[in-house]
């Protein structure tokens, strides 16, 4: 059962159709990637899911029921892209305050905070002020405050910005752990290599519309271009062949594109029959980055303001 269903969601601002008829669903326990170029409408979409904005049209189902911002927000943990903390407040108090606002009782919140602080080796920070923290440290604190109240749905907007690889991995591991425990994670970013690494399912939005929706494998398969890489002991000379064409060379391998109507076996047969030593043979799937650029390219990079007649 999906934890979140978005149905024909629309949100128009004075000068823009920020979200224009988007539908998709997010399976429980999955790690979901919401992608899109700057200004595609991701943040507006997330703000509707977190109850900050009301949609103009369409509806959101949360856990099978119509989303009720007043009661359901305590099951959501949202780490927005524009995030911060009260600079003058002590770290422990801050975490406690945010946890209480999410409906946690004081002692319950305390034990949770302590657990997380131990996990992230932050115990000594309790009485420090936020202004004393480095950017990476406050990012970790921000993450802790987002997941502290055991949300069913965690929404992370660019969670790794400003984190070094070590801390990135620390948070990445926690995201996996939470997902294993049954949490659903929506992950919004335009860093494609992170999406490829983490997400099961992706949705790509551009100019307020959904332009891609599917599991990571499926998307990659949909966009593959029959490219293969063949590695040799010694690169052979190629004579005219009808099964494939040479796209490029890389070290000891050729990158080839198999022509329509032929199978990889035809290629292998060609080399094997010539007695050429093959070291490796594998398909090259397009990277998400390539797919992203391919889909978004050609549209103006920044959204133009347009008059709305409504």
């Amino acid at each position, binding site marked *: 059962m999906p934890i979140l269903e978005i149905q024909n969601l629309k949100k128009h601002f*004075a000068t823009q159709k920020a979200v224009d008829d988007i539908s998709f669903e997010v399976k429980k326990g999955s790690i979901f990637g919401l992608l899109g170029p700057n200004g595609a409408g991701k943040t507006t979409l997330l*703000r509707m899911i*977190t*109850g*900050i904005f009301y949609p103009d049209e369409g509806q959101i189902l949360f856990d099978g029921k119509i989303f009720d911002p007043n009661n359901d*927000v*305590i099951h*959501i943990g*949202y*780490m*927005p892209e*524009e*995030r*911060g*903390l*009260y*600079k*003058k*407040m002590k770290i422990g108090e801050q975490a406690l*305050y*945010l946890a*209480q*606002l*999410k409906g946690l009782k004081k002692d319950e919140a305390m034990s949770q905070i302590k657990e997380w602080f131990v996990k992230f080796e932050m115990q000594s920070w309790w009485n420090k002020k936020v202004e004393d923290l480095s950017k990476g440290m406050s990012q970790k604190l*921000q993450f802790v*405050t987002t997941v502290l109240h055991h949300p069913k749905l965690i929404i992370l907007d660019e969670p790794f910005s400003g984190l070094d690889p070590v801390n990135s991995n620390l948070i990445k591991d926690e995201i996996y752990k939470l997902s294993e425990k049954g949490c659903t994670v929506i992950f919004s970013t335009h860093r494609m290599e992170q999406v490829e690494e983490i997400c099961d399912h992706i949705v790509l939005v551009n100019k307020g519309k959904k332009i891609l929706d599917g599991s990571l494998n499926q998307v990659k398969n949909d966009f593959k271009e029959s490219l293969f890489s063949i590695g040799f002991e010694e690169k052979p000379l190629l004579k005219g062949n009808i099964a494939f064409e040479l796209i490029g060379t890389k070290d000891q391998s050729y990158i080839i594109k198999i022509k329509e109507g032929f199978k990889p076996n035809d290629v292998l047969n060609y080399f094997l029959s010539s007695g050429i030593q093959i070291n490796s043979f594998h398909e090259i799937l397009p990277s998400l980055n390539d797919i992203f650029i391919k889909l978004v390219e050609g549209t103006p990079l920044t959204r133009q303001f347009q008059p709305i007649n409504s």
Partner: protein
Amino acid sequence: MNKIFIIIRREYLTRVKNKTFLLTTFLLPIVFLLFIVGSTFLAVKSKTVDTIAVITEANLFKQALKSDSTIVIFDFTHSVTTDNYLYKGYSGILRIPSDSSHQKFVIESPKTLSMETMDYIKWQINNVIENNMLKQLRIDENVLDSISTASENAFQLTNELTTGEEANAGLAYGVGFGSGILIYLTMFIFGAMVMRGVMEEKTNRIAEVMVSSVKPFQLMMGKIIGIAAVGLTQLVLWILFIILLLSAVQLFIPSDVVEQFKQIQEMQQQLPGGSSNTVAFELLQAKATFISEVNWSLIISCFLFYFLGGYLFYASLFAAVGSVINEDPQEAQSLMLPITLPIIFAFIMLAPSIENPDSSLAFWGSMIPFTSPIIMMGRIANGVPEAVPYWQLFLSMILLIGGFILTTWFAGKIYRTGILLYGKKASWKEMIKWIRRS
């Protein structure tokens, strides 16, 4: 509801625990006390006794005018003229006409005599005339009238060389003006505190994190109520602290000063409307007599009401402005102007409204919620229901409550959109659009 309470508690505690709060709360009354003690001391040390040459044909005055060695010494002499009295060491000449019911009493002096001296002279002359008339006539209704007429004549004491000012603005005036100014200041101080708090949330980028847990309106109201509680705490602490200091003030004042004060106080009791010339004596008087002369429970409860009402009326507007400002503090100036202008305008209207509490300026100023907290406080000191009828007071209060509900409603709409808007300054025009849209 519970969430709002959590927000209120944070807003309140972070501010009350702040060092500047403690400093202003406890240091200000101490500075106030030092000021009282210092000026009392100086006033007493610089006190002079005036010797007045009295020129009169009437034996009555020669016998009955009594000197007071600490204030005025009367000297009856014929050898003094306008040209030489200073040379002879007199502070002034008092000319008493032979027919006191038709001619004016005249005092000549190169400087303004202190209010204390003038009051003493007036009181002495008045006393002499009154006693004389009572002696001459049997008292019936008509006689009482003529006594008061005679008294009035006696008070037409003119100072020929300098037009002596009415030094004492009066207790009601002082209380009204003081509480008006205090409302004005607190409205600015705590209104700006709300605005800074909202700006902090916006520039620290915590606003969006917050509104994913609570409604923007809850966040705004939590902050406004929290800071209102800070303001009330500070005001109540000040009142308590001042009462405490005033009762302890005698311990700090040299005993001879206290002695002098007591003498003056005894005299005051026979001389209603009399005044002292220094701040210190007024404040000592405040302790001794103001408590009985002013309806303090009314003033304080009205003050707290108008502080809260005025604060709530403007705080949400300050919050709305804070929500649309980005990092640039200069933006604040231009957006704040429409809010600060009516407050400053009310402050300008304060003095004329107290002087003429029945004028239409005072009436409308104390009804319209933009100015009513300041103006009404100024008028109330003149007395309810004498200067301000009950219906006016209640109408003003109801209008203020209605006013702040309205401003909060409007401001909430601006705040909701503004707090999430980054990197862009909103104009008033846009804000009005936000109000209309939602």
